[in-house]
């Protein structure tokens, strides 16, 4: 009877090794988490410009950007995170290269526009990790989908990113 009771509570060397390994993994995870928390930078105000290129303008229909105003929220691809607020909207003629008199010239394409949206946001900078807004890297030359109101800016390009210097 006594032997059976002892057998049930047996704690073998292997169990000890497993427990030690688990503790080591936990300590490692906590250390990494703490280091990341220490490296978390301060909020930096940035302005980035988005280019939504070669967009069709439909005659007789209001274009979505006509209702965009300064301060409107700019969302990520699936609309779950706010990536800043609209600062200004520029509507430019979309131009493409054509040949005229044997030379290449850039000519405006009818009913097509390039929409440039300036966005202000608070970003966090970490060395090696870049500038991130809600954990999404904002870098000039990057491409992604954004949302403003009920409109998806598919394949919008980040033209530039600059830090806002307050006097």
């Amino acid at each position, binding site marked *: 009877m006594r032997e059976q009771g002892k057998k049930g509570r047996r704690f073998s060397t292997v169990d000890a090794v497993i427990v030690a390994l688990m503790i080591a993994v936990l300590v490692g995870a906590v250390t990494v988490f703490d280091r990341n928390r220490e490296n978390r930078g301060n909020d930096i105000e940035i302005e980035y410009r988005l280019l939504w290129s070669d967009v069709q303008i439909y005659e007789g229909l209001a274009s979505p950007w006509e209702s965009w105003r300064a301060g409107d929220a700019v969302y990520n691809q699936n609309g779950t995170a706010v990536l800043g607020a609209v600062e200004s909207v520029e509507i430019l003629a979309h131009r493409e290269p054509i040949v005229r008199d044997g030379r*290449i010239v850039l000519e405006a394409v009818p009913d097509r526009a390039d929409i440039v949206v300036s966005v202000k946001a608070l970003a966090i900078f970490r060395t*090696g990790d870049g*500038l991130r807004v809600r954990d999404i*890297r904002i*870098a*000039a030359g990057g491409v992604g989908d954004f949302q403003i109101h009920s409109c998806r800016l598919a394949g919008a390009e*980040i033209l530039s990113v600059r830090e806002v210097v307050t006097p």
Partner: protein
Amino acid sequence: MRVKKRIHPLDLCVILLIILCLLGLFLRWKDLSARDTDGAVRYEIVMEMPGVGWETAACYDPGETLYTEVGEVFGSIRRIERQPAKIRVPSEHGTIFGDWGEEKVDLRFYVDAEGAESNGRFLWDGRHALLCGERYTLYTKHARLVGTVLHFEPQIG
């Protein structure tokens, strides 16, 4: 009376797994150390990024550190050359060649990098060989760079 200690089959499996893991780690370490690296080597890497809009092109500056997507240091930009991006448009008289003028530029980056040399190959992070013709996605603080390696050579002195 002493009870004879017996190892449970499950414990035996765990021990075997641990031994296999340790063996794997040892083999990996042995593989890395067997690459008879000649210590740290400084290299100059020439990378090209074609057809960049003027506004984005202005976001790259010499002296900036380049990081990989996982945040490892790749090198630092020493010099940037900007040239109007080439363009070709088909026409009824054949293809016309020209450039984008100030609209778009081809950027050529001269990057200083430090890594290890192994069997005539440059391991930019001590593990991965740098390859001509390969495209690398790198980041500065403000911009993303997708550049193709055109050339690289060790720096003397």
